[in-house]
């Protein structure tokens, strides 16, 4: 009597099933006659040549089987296809887009359909599932590194140039770069100002308990107000102030644009920065301060030799939250004329131009993820080994 196979790994199973949905029901690529025409979904079989879809089926089929059978331990060799798959998929997407466009009208566009996005999520789940069951040798990360390098190469080589998002980017290259720089400036400046004000405030609040509740009460309210509302609240008062004091106008301050954006974003970033500065100093064990004082450190020495190194990782993670949050809110600031990547999002929404929306949204997401990763690295570096 045949025994039902026992499911060994639910995560692997789920990932494989999710990966296989690319066959049905989700469209793989989307074809549009021009940039604002309604899209027409292309299934995997319509979009890519047979070796590609066969390969994809075999790939997911293998891991589907693998979730029922085989050893508990994932071998390094099995990691290789999983690590290389995302870049291969992107490569195929690029090839197919070029192929489809070569047979279409000049203004036609091809973009990635839900199938591609879901495949990428499935690859992510697959990799997490596989890596939670590999050995601990350093060699296991080689496939991942190669895969990441390959993905970067696919992105950088122009392989994806016929995807509509990339087409849009190429067409607006100069504007894109200037808005990206703009975005970075607004985010950087607001977080910088907020750090200058917030770190000392956090320290004061740490030393003076009576200020603590009031400060956090106010900052919490500021954080609660929707970003768009906070921008809006600043516009009219600023305009009046600038009319009343012409000097401000000469200094380059305006009722809309950068001025309210920077003010609002600086206020927004205050809560995480002040809170984490306070939490960082509060995390310094009282016996450390006592030992330091007992050894004859003065206030400044105690601060720089003991308290700050101890508080720094927590303080930096506040900065990280503030930065990630402000990258997003800077996109909203495009609505009040401050520029940044949000310009493309809202222009795109206004024109129903989906590629333009994506041109703003995708880089904003990548920027936030990148800033986050950068700060995580920084926090690791700033955490002394004794505290890890």
């Amino acid at each position, binding site marked *: 009597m045949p025994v039902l196979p026992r499911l060994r790994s639910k995560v692997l199973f*789920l990932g494989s099933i999710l990966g296989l949905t690319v066959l049905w029901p989700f469209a793989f690529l989307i074809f549009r006659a021009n940039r604002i025409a309604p899209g027409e979904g292309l299934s995997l079989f319509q979009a890519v040549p047979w070796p590609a879809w066969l390969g994809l089926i075999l790939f997911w089929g293998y891991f589907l089987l693998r979730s029922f059978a085989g050893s508990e331990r994932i071998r390094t060799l099995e990691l290789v296809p999983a690590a290389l798959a995302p870049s291969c998929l992107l490569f195929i997407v690029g090839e197919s887009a070029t192929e489809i466009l070569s047979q279409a009208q000049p203004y036609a566009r091809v973009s990635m359909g839900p199938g591609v996005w879901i495949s990428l999520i499935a690859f992510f789940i697959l990799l997490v599932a596989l890596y939670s069951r590999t050995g601990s040798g350093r060699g296991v990360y080689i496939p991942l590194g190669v895969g990441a390098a390959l993905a970067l190469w696919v992105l950088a080589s122009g392989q994806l140039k016929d995807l509509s998002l990339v087409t849009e980017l190429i067409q607006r290259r100069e504007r894109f770069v200037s808005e990206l720089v703009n975005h970075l400036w607004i985010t950087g400046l607001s977080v910088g100002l907020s750090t200058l004000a917030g770190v000392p405030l956090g320290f004061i609040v740490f030393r003076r308990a009576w200020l603590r509740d009031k400060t956090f009460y106010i900052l919490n309210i500021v954080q*609660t107000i929707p970003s768009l*509302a*906070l*921008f809006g609240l600043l516009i009219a008062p600023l305009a009046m102030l600038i009319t009343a004091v012409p000097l401000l106008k000469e200094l380059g301050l305006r009722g809309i644009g950068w001025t309210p954006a920077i003010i609002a974003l600086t206020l927004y970033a205050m809560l995480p920065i002040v809170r984490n500065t306070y939490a960082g100093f509060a995390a310094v064990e009282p016996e450390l301060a006592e030992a330091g004082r007992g050894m004859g450190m003065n206030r400044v020495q105690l601060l720089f030799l003991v308290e700050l190194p101890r508080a720094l990782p927590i303080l930096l993670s506040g900065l990280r939250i503030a930065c990630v949050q402000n990258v997003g809110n800077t996109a909203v600031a495009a609505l009040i004329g401050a520029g940044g990547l949000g310009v493309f999002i809202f222009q795109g929404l206004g024109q129903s131009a989906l590629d333009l*929306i994506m041109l*703003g949204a995708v880089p904003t*997401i990548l920027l936030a993820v990148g800033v*986050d990763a950068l700060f995580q690295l920084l926090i690791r570096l700033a955490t002394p080994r004794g505290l890890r």
Partner: protein
Amino acid sequence: MSVKQAQSLGKLILLPALFGLLISSTSVWEILLRPAFPHLENLVYSRAPLWELVVQHANMVAVSSTLATLVGTGLGVFVTRSRGREFLPVVNSLVSMGQTFPPVAVLAVSVPMVGFGYKPTIIALFLYGLLPIVRNTISGLESVGPEIHEAAQGMGLTAVQTLFRVEVPLALHVIMAGIRTSVVINIGTATIGATIGAGGLGVPIIAGLNSDNPAFILQGAVLSGLFAILVDAGMNRAERGAVPSAQE
């Protein structure tokens, strides 16, 4: 003490009253804004009554946050049970990755997928609102120590009884904080929903920006700001009422 009392009095009575007044009567706005903008022709946003925008806004947030709470706590409970524990690393990494995605970008990306209007807003709000709830449910439940599990088991509680009588009460304040964060973010993101035609309190702001009417902007901004503060304060009260006193 008196500051606290004044604050809670303000939250309890004054702010809701002010909010109610501002959405029910246009003449209040006339009185408030006319001195500031004597030459403005349209002083009060009139294409839809303000209270209707509030209802739209509240509806979007309520629907998406309710869904997110149900799904998010369920998911959080699932991945902390022995059956679902296998999914914990995947869910954790998806959640921490997803939380770095800016809400406005998530909202924007959902348009190409679903289209304009109410539906993509709800989907984006739901997806984004899931993250803090899942994360806090997991960390709340995981913070219940092994000795407590052992004690519960030793007293003969079943797994379900342990969950509802021990783990959930202990984790409740963390879970509630996650829901509150989620709701506040959703209120903010729903404001931007006005740009994709979802209605709500962002509408006067966008209209004001487009027609260069600072009074419209102020109305939308004041109302959506007040709305967020009120909901946050209300949830704060609910949270304190729901959490066992030992946690205070």
